[in-house]
Every structure is written in C-alpha cells, then in structure tokens.
C-alpha cells in the first residue's frame, strides 16, 4: 500500500482528486463521522508521488514510501 488514508479526517473538498496525476482518488460510499464521503486511493493506479499529501488541507494522507 503506497498511501495510508486517515479517512475520518477527510472533508471531501476534492482538492486531492483534481491534483492526483494518475486520477487514483475517488470518494467512498460510506459516510465518515463528520458526514463526508472520504477519499479512497486505488493502489493499482497510485504511484506514491505524494501530491495528495502535499495538497490536502486536513492532513488525511501519509505516503508509506513502498
């Protein structure tokens, strides 16, 4: 797994998804405790570039380095 998603922090702003160069981010059908549909990363598409970490204002992502 290249990215860990701390999905309880996500506010579904969409900024990660528009900036992901591989279009690897979509939004879950399961609503989190804040009432948002959090970001989900498709590990098969993801290249671990870290742009989602860089852009997310809510500190949702960690890049594992794998």
């Amino acid at each position, binding site marked *: 797994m290249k990215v860990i998603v701390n999905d309880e922090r996500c506010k579904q*702003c*969409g900024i990660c998804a528009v*900036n992901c160069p591989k279009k690897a981010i979509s939004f879950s059908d399961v609503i989190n405790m804040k009432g948002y549909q959090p970001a989900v990363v498709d590990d098969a598409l993801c290249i671990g570039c870290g742009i989602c970490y860089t*852009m997310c*204002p*809510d*500190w949702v992502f960690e*890049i594992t*380095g*794998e």
Partner: protein
Amino acid sequence: MAVAKKIPSILSKQISFCPGCGHGVVVRLIAECIEEMKQEKNSIINVGVGCYSLMTPSVEIDRFDSLHGRGAAISTGFKRANPDTLVISYQGDGDAYSIGIGESVSAAYRNENITVITVNNTNYGMTGGQMSATTMPGQKTTTSPLGRNCQTTGMPMKFPEMIASSFPEVAYVARGSVTKPAYVNKLKGYIKNAFEAQMNGEGYSLIEVLSPCPTNWGMSPVESHERVNGEIEAYYPLGEFKLREEK
C-alpha cells in the same frame, strides 16, 4: 521509489477549518519545518484572531492566542525575553493589515528578529467575510455588497512589497501560495528560509500566503483554487522580495 511522508507528530489531532480552507496547509508546512529543524520544544506560535485561532488545540507546541492584530508586538516581547526561541506570528490579512497594521509595520521597521506569516484570503473569514485591506477590486463581500470600489477604498494592500521596499535591512520577505503542488513545495522553502534567518539572528522575516476561503467566497474548494491561481495571483505576484544576505 516513492518518498515516505508523514504528518508531523505535533499535529496528532484533527483541525476544524472548513473543507478546502488554505490554513490547514500552512499550519502543516510550519509544523514540518519545526520538526525538520528539531525545534518542537523551542518554538512558540503566536496566533492572531481569525479562523486560524482554531488551530491552537491542534498544534502541540507552545502557543499563545494573541490580541487582535497585535501579533508582531506580542511576538517582539516573546523574542526579547527568549532570544533563542523560534517565535512565529501567525496572522490573517484582516488581523495583520487592517486591524493591526501599526504593529505589523513597526516590527518590520525595528527589524525585530521574528517571523511573521500572514495568510491572505482577501477577507475577514471568521466573522462572515467582510472586506479587508486585500479584498480584490470589484469583489463582493458582506461590507462591499456591490463589489469593492477602489476609488473610495483604495487598491488592495501589498504588504510584502511595502516592507521589502521601505525597510531593505529586514532579513527575508516572500509571498507563496497553497493552490498548486509546486507552489506548496516552494512555500515550504520560504518558511524554512524565514525560520533559519531568525535562528541565525538575521532579523525580521515575513511570508505572505495566498489562500482560498471557499466558504465566504461562495465557491467550491476547487473553484476557489482557480480564483487564487487566476485573478489573485495576477495582482499578487509570487516570489521572494528580499533575499537573505550572507552574515
């Protein structure tokens, strides 16, 4: 090989800004720089009055909720009493440029050895989006419902340019943005430079950050990024206005 990236340990709690608010990125970059410089136990963040006041429970270093607009003056006191501590004044355009412009200018004029970070989202976010000194020409706010009229209110203030040209002896002045991956990386470099200048005793440093306020702009977070990258960046150029000098 992907490079590992971990949220700084001093940010273990979540933050309660609106979805897409730029403040969250600025706070994280400050924390990353503090952690990389190993200053977690030797920093104080002096937080002005604005939405960013909400950061104080989430940033686990020494912190102080400042009087409105007086961040640079209060930071002066912290720094003079604790000259080896990294002192950061975190403010907004309303706080630093409208309410506290006297204190903001005076700290630069004295070349006080502190770092001022001002987050410019072109309005008073916390109180519902009133016009500030950096509201753009024609921008509608709750106190400029027909759009800002610059003939009666003046043109938006360019604080970094004013400081760099009026007080050329200050250590470092730059303007960054949080609205593109390359901009965020550059902004981190600016913040690092400012902190290093302060720890080296080089004098006053200032970073302005162009930042979206989707809630009060009535835009989606993605649209608010486009506004920063278009209209706002065209008026507020990014870059360094005063470079550090060898000491």
